């Protein structure tokens, strides 16, 4: 069960040595580099792109980033433990479909929302059971549930759309907090991000997740209940995906079975761009937040600059490739320099 790598290329990443002198221009940490890139892109877009630096545009940009941002939070934790959850978008869709069906059958909306989030948690628990109790690879399991949950969404709602949600709820989903362009939904997402950040970076629980991702076997021997931790992460991932389904439904005022289709790849892309290692054990929540926003800002700015929406995939994909190739190339270069300097590589974890 202890796959030390999730889709590792057969060669392992070389340990980063210390070649401080000649590569000093490279930021020491990937998340810091990403935040700088984000600031640069925001600044550049504000100067160069007409209509970017308006409150209304910022509002739309942030509203668009909420769903990906929400799901990216638990996904970060899951990937740090060396697992992956590809079923998140289907969970979102199934929760949205069930939400529509329950609303049609006359449930009060408060209850519908709670039920949707609870359903998400149950769907996540199903993933968790398959991965931890049966010891199956999460990649395969969640490709299976990706198909299964999306299929069930169509079984529940067919190809109809439920759109008659009360106006005060749907407008609440896009409403802006007083005193700025920040939508309430984004405020909530940011608070949740802080909570996840604290749990990941400032609690023993968070440290355990890194330990599991670095070496599950060693983590188990040091007394960490690896399976139980992973199980609950999948539950949380499902619940937050359910929440994202609620948001999606209210934001577009439409419950549909195909809501959020394909979102899983966008979420995984944002998480990996954020510097989380697909092998597990490395990555920060700040990096992931910067990754989500960077992708959102680039998409928005390029769209305003009249680049066709579908062409933007080139940018997303290239960023993703660059985000793994560049740190690796730098690490290799450093290792080589370190060898040249007869300086033993100390396997410091850079670009974490």
């Amino acid at each position: 069960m202890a796959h030390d790598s999730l889709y590792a290329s057969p060669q392992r990443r070389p340990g980063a040595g210390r070649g401080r002198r000649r590569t000093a221009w490279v930021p020491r940490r990937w998340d810091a580099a990403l935040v700088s890139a984000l600031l640069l892109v925001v600044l550049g877009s504000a100067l160069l792109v007409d209509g970017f630096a308006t409150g209304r545009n910022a509002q739309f940009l942030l509203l668009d980033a909420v769903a990906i941002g929400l799901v990216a939070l638990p996904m970060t934790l899951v990937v740090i433990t060396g697992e992956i959850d590809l079923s998140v978008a289907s969970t979102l869709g199934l929760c949205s479909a069930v939400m529509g069906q329950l609303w049609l059958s006359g449930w009060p909306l408060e209850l519908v929302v709670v039920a949707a989030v609870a359903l998400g948690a149950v769907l996540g628990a199903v993933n968790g059971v398959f991965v931890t109790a049966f010891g199956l690879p999460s990649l395969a399991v969640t490709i299976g549930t990706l198909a299964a949950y999306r299929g069930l969404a169509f079984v529940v709602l067919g190809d109809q759309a439920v759109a008659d949600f009360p106006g005060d709820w749907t407008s609440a989903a896009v409403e802006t907090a007083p005193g700025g362009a920040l939508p309430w939904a984004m405020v909530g997402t940011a608070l949740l991000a802080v909570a996840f950040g604290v749990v990941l970076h400032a609690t023993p629980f968070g440290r355990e997740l890194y330990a599991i991702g670095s070496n599950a076997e060693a983590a188990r021997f040091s007394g960490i209940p690896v399976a139980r931790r992973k199980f609950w992460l999948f539950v949380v991932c499902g619940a937050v995906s359910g929440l994202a389904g609620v948001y999606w439904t209210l934001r577009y005022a439409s419950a549909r079975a195909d809501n959020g289709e394909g979102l899983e790849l966008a979420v995984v892309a944002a998480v990996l761009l954020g510097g989380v290692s697909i092998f597990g054990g490395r990555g920060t929540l700040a990096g992931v937040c910067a990754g989500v926003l960077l992708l959102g800002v680039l998409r928005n700015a390029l769209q305003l600059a009249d680049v066709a929406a579908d062409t933007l995939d080139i940018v997303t994909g290239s960023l993703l490739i660059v985000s793994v190739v560049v740190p690796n190339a730098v690490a290799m270069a450093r290792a080589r320099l370190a060898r040249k300097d007869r300086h033993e590589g100390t396997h410091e974890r850079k670009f974490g």
Partner: protein
Amino acid sequence: MTALRARRELGVLLALALLVAFTAADNSRFLSSQSIRDVLLSASILVVLAVGQTVVVVTRNIDLSVGSVLGLTAFATGKLFVAAPGTPLVVAVLAGVGLGALCGALNGALIAAARVPALVITLGTLYVLRGVDHSWASGEQINAADLPRSFLDFGTATVLGVPVLALVAAAVLLVVATWLGSYRVGRELYAIGSEPAAARLSGIPVGARVFLAFVVSGALAGLAGVLHAARYGTVDATVGSGMELQVVAAVVVGGVAIFGGSGTAYGAAIGALLLTTIGSSLAVLRVDPFWQQAAVGGLILAAIGLDRALAARTARRAAARSAADAAAGQDAGRRGEREATHGS
């Protein structure tokens, strides 16, 4: 181990046979030559992709970009025929395969040379190639009317009642399965997937082999793109999107271990055939078509669960056998000792 693997493919084949038998019992027209032809036609593209994916997955890698490669080559094939209507079929196929191989080489070079995980790189190229496709097409659609008659005939023609596309898929399957199973380079791919470090220590050029696996997968995705253009005649920039998950599903259902080192192209092809057949048999059984995707999901989970159970049983047996061997060895040792004391 071989017996286990053979049993594994037999299991998928049995599931397929049961599905066909059950559906045919309900409606005998399901076994009419027309209906079989339809299933084979729609399965052949997925089979070609699944065979290519197998080559990559046995090396403990994955190629998520195949849907985008298929889309790009399908569109390129259409464009080629629009620009030069007289292009011979062979040239079109070679161009498609070449373009696909180029995309695969891009994946392979990044993965093997820059030493980064395949999942991330091919997710990246999934987006990049789809974006290239969109910006090239910029909303344009190629219709059957733009394609030469002979090319479209290739997509629907039959030889002795068997669709040509299915024959192409079968030929690809036979060649790749033989290569993987009985040739040195093919076996090396399994060795890499079982234990990369051990493979390197035993002198296998791991980087070069992984690169080759991605080129093969890309080339077959390119071929699938040409087949897609011939089969459907209508090509826009969205062709093949989301197909990667279907392909991975087919491979997994067919018993190719997602962590490399085991499984055959035959299994993957049967998996692809099974996934396609489910679609048409649900329609024949008048099951709500909305159930189809849910059934596919259930099938994937069942398949990986079954693999796990089989692997666990093999491991238990091996452990029991080695325990028995050890006990026997100990006995022999003790007996030897006793005889030695007797002698003195």
